[in-house]
C-alpha cells in the first residue's frame, strides 16, 4: 500500500481504461489529491514586482518603498498550508517532503527565461544541523551554479525569527565563490529561494552577482 508522503494517508493508484489498455504498471502518486488540493497557486491580480497576491495589479506598498525595478516570481502564497509545509520540510528537516514541490518547481522554471540558475546557499552550520539545502532539494535535474557562499558569522540567527525592521537592517551575508567571475559575466541570472518576505536576502544576493558581472538578475521563490 502506498501512502502520501505529506499526510501519511493511503493513496490508491487510479485505474483507467487507458492504463489497462497500455498495460502500464500502476503508479500511485506520491502526494494524495487532498494534499494537492490544499496547495493553491497564486493568481492574478498580483504585484508586478514581487508577485504578492492582492486586490489590484499595482505595485505594492513594500515594492514602492524599495524603489527599484526588482522582478520576482512566486508559485504559492505564504499561507497556513505553506507554513505547515516549510515547518516540516525545512525546520524539522523532513527532506523527503521535497518531492511535494518538485513538479511545481519544474513547471515554474520551464516558464522562466534565464541563462544561469543560482540557488540561495545555506550556511555551513545549517548544513550540519539540517543536512540539506532546502532550495536545491526542489530541483530535479535542472542545472544550477552555486556561485554564492554565506558565512555563519553574518547569520547569528535565522531570518525567519526576525521582525521586518531587523530583517531590513541585515548586513550583506553573501560572498562570491572564486570561480564566479568566470561564470557570471554577461549572464541573465535567476535566483531561487524558498520564501520572499521582505526581499532583503534576494537583493543582497543580487548585489554580489552584479559585482560578478551578470547583465540581469531576477528571482523565483516558492512562496510570497
Amino acid at each position, binding site marked *: 500500500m502506498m501512502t502520501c508522503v505529506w499526510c501519511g494517508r493511503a493513496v490508491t493508484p487510479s485505474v483507467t481504461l487507458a492504463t489497462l489498455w497500455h498495460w502500464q504498471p500502476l503508479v500511485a502518486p506520491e502526494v494524495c489529491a487532498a494534499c494537492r488540493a490544499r496547495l493553491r497557486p497564486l493568481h492574478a491580480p498580483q504585484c508586478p514586482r514581487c508577485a504578492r497576491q492582492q486586490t489590484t495589479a499595482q505595485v505594492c506598498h513594500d515594492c514602492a518603498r524599495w524603489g527599484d525595478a526588482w522582478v520576482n516570481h512566486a508559485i504559492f502564497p505564504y499561507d497556513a498550508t505553506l507554513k505547515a509545509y516549510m515547518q516540516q520540510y525545512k525546520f*524539522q528537516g523532513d*527532506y523527503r517532503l521535497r518531492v511535494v514541490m518538485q513538479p511545481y518547481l519544474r513547471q515554474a522554471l520551464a516558464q522562466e527565461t534565464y541563462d544561469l540558475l543560482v540557488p540561495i546557499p545555506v550556511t555551513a552550520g545549517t548544513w550540519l544541523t539540517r*543536512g*540539506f539545502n532546502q532550495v536545491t*532539494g526542489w530541483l530535479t535535474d535542472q542545472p544550477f551554479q552555486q556561485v554564492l557562499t554565506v558565512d555563519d558569522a553574518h547569520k547569528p540567527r535565522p531570518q525567519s525569527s526576525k521582525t521586518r525592521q531587523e530583517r531590513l537592517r541585515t548586513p550583506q551575508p553573501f560572498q562570491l565563490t572564486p570561480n564566479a567571475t568566470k561564470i557570471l559575466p554577461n549572464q541573465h541570472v535567476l535566483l531561487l529561494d524558498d520564501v520572499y518576505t521582505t526581499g532583503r536576502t534576494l537583493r543582497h544576493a543580487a548585489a554580489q552577482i552584479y559585482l560578478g558581472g551578470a547583465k540581469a538578475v531576477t528571482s523565483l521563490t516558492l512562496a510570497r
Partner: protein
Amino acid sequence: MDKSQLFGRRLPLTQAPAGGHNIPALRQVNGRWQCQRCHQWVGPTDQLPHGIPYCRHCLNLGRLTTHTKLYTIPEPNQFATLTSSPLRWQGQLSPQQETAAQAVLRHTQAKRDQLLWAVTGAGKTEIGFPALAWALQQGWRVAWTSPRVDVCLELAPRLAQAIAVPQTVLYGGQPVPYAYCPLTICTTHQLLRFEAAFDWLIVDEVDAFPLATSPLLQLAIQRAQKPTGSHLYLTATPGQDLQRQIRRHQLAVTYLPLRYHGYLLPPLRVKLVGDWRRQLDQRRLPGKLIRQVRRYQQTHQRYLLFVPHVQDLARVQAALQHAGLAGGVTVHAADPKRQAKVQAFRDHHVNGLLTTTILERGVTFPAVCVLILGGDDPVFATSALVQIAGRVGRQRDHPGGDVLCYATSQPRTIQRAQAMINALNRRGRRLGGRRP
C-alpha cells in the same frame, strides 16, 4: 546539563554528558535501518543528500539520523523519601468504588499488569488514587499517560490537588520544560523519550485513537516501563486484544460495572432505516430520525447527533433545516471554535449539537440524549459506540436517556457494542444496579 534530565530517558544530544552511555539512533538490521527511539523501519527513500537515512516516524520529536546518538542514564529513583501517604484527596469513594480501589491496590502491590474495566462515568481516576499514593510512597517512579492530550491537561490539576508529590506534565508544545519528578503526566507519544523509566505506568483511555491502532505507541509503553515494572490500563471499552489477554489470564482485571450513582447503563437501541446516504444526497433524512429530533425540540430535550464524517455535518444540518427543524450547531476536530461551541451547548445556549466521534469520550453533558446517524459506518467501532452511549445518564438526577442508532444494517460492531453494554449491565444488576 543536569544529569537528572537523562534518568530513564533516551535523548539525542550533541555532546556526551558525564555518566551517560549512548547508542546510535539508527541501527542496521538485515540491511534495513531501524530507529532506536520509535523502533519503526526507515523507508528506503527516507534519506538526506549523500544517502544519510533518517526516521520520519518520530520526526515530531526531533529528527534522528545515522549521525545522531541517543543518550541515557539508567533510572536511579532518586526521590525524596515519603514518610506518610502523599494522598491529600478528601473525597469519598462509593462502596463499589472502594472495592475496586482495593483490588487495584492489591494487584499493584503484587506488580501485576492489570486492567480496570469500569463503565463510562464510574470515576476511574479516583479509583486509582489509593494505589497511586501507595506506589509513590514506595519511591516508585510513576507515569499517568493517555493518547489524548485533553485528558492529560484535564488530569494534571486534579492530580496536583490530590497527590502531594512533584509532577511534570509533558505533551507536544508544552510551555514548561521537562523536570525529573516521581509523577509524570504525559501523552503516549512522549513516552518515546523514555527508556526503562517507570515502575508503574497508568494508561488512561487505552482504547482511544491513536494508541489502539498504533504499534509504535504500544511499543513505546512497553519500553518506557522498567523490566521489573507493571502497568494499569483504564478503559470502559477494552478492545478484542485486551479481552483476549483477560481470557488468557495475562492481565488481571477489576470490573466496575456500575456508575457512581448506582444506575445501569442505558441500552443501545437500533432503528433500521433505508439508504440514508442516498436520502442525504437529496437533502432528506430518514423519517424516524426527523420525528425523533422534532420530539426533542418540542420537549426542549437536549441531544447530541453523531455522524460518521466531518463532510456529513453540514449536509445533515442543511437537511434538518430543510425539514423545518433547527439545525443545531456542528463541531468537528479541526473546528477553530470547537471549545466555544461545546461550552455553548454545556451552558444550554443551544439545544442540539451535531458532531463526529471527537465528542465520543471525555465529555459530560447533563440530561442529554444521543442519536447516531449511520451507526453501521466503520468509523463507529464497538468502543466508539459504547463510549457514545456512555454520554447519556451521567448525572444522579438524570440517570437515563435515549441512545438511538440509525443504521442501514446491523454489523458486528453494533452487535458487539450491545453485547458489551448488556454484559456490563448483567454484572451491574448483581451488584444491585437499578434500571434508570
